[in-house]
């Protein structure tokens, strides 16, 4: 019973912060809403006994990515507000019905597959240990490729943001 109440509180927090991120005009508020959202999702991971992911979520997303967003917003202060007339306002109104259509579609797919069979919740064996074992045995090659991807991103970012020496 307690976990159900916790789930609904967290769900309200996560959905509310997501809506706030989309609705607020100031990107700084959006970044703060994003931090709340990521923290809520980390708590949801904890509720699903994915402790490693909860820690990684806080460190990687709420720690690194959110700070990166705030830095970028600070660097781009003149461009932070969406001002001026919207040249594509008519097209933008289409977005809401399209989003509703997507929601309907996902709901239909879920109804036909996920919600039909209600399996009893199985517990993930081992938690952190199981994830680590998988990462360094079955997924060793993707793991190494990921490290290479991060290196490539590092070098690419430096090359992209370097000022021309002129």
């Amino acid at each position: 019973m307690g976990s159900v109440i916790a789930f609904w509180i967290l769900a309200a927090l996560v959905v509310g912060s997501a809506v706030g991120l989309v609705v607020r005009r100031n990107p700084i508020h959006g970044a703060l809403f994003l931090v709340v959202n990521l923290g809520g999702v980390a708590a949801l991971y904890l509720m699903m006994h994915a402790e490693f992911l909860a820690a990684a979520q806080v460190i990687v997303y709420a720690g690194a990515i959110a700070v990166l967003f705030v830095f970028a917003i600070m660097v781009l202060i003149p461009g932070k507000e969406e001002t001026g007339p919207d040249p594509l306002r008519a097209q933008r109104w289409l977005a809401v019905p399209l989003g509703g259509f997507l929601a309907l579609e996902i709901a239909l797919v879920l109804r036909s597959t996920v919600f039909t069979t209600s399996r009893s919740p199985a517990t993930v064996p081992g938690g952190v240990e199981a994830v680590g074992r998988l990462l360094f045995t079955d997924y060793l090659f993707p793991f190494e490729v990921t490290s290479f991807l991060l290196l490539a991103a590092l070098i690419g970012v430096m090359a992209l943001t370097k000022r021309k020496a002129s």
Partner: protein
Amino acid sequence: MVPESHYVALSAVLFVIGVVGVLIRRNPLVIFMSIELMLNAANLALVAFGQRHGTAQGQALVFFVMCVAAAEVAVGLAIIVSIFRMRRRLSVDELSLMRW
């Protein structure tokens, strides 16, 4: 104990909010944050499905998604910063030029 279908439904709601955010906003930074929202929704669904099948494979997959998201954000923000240096404005509707 909350059934996984609840988590999957929540992730679907989050994903739709992210899609609407990408569609209605003009600021590329906010669009990026909405993309992060969608990635998070997908991660939540992956963990829920992994728990449903009783394996940790979903969690391993989420780890890779997180790494790719970190790389994507770094490169994307670098591109946005360099575009801003060049044009002094930020609006995705004006960025129709593929070269300079």
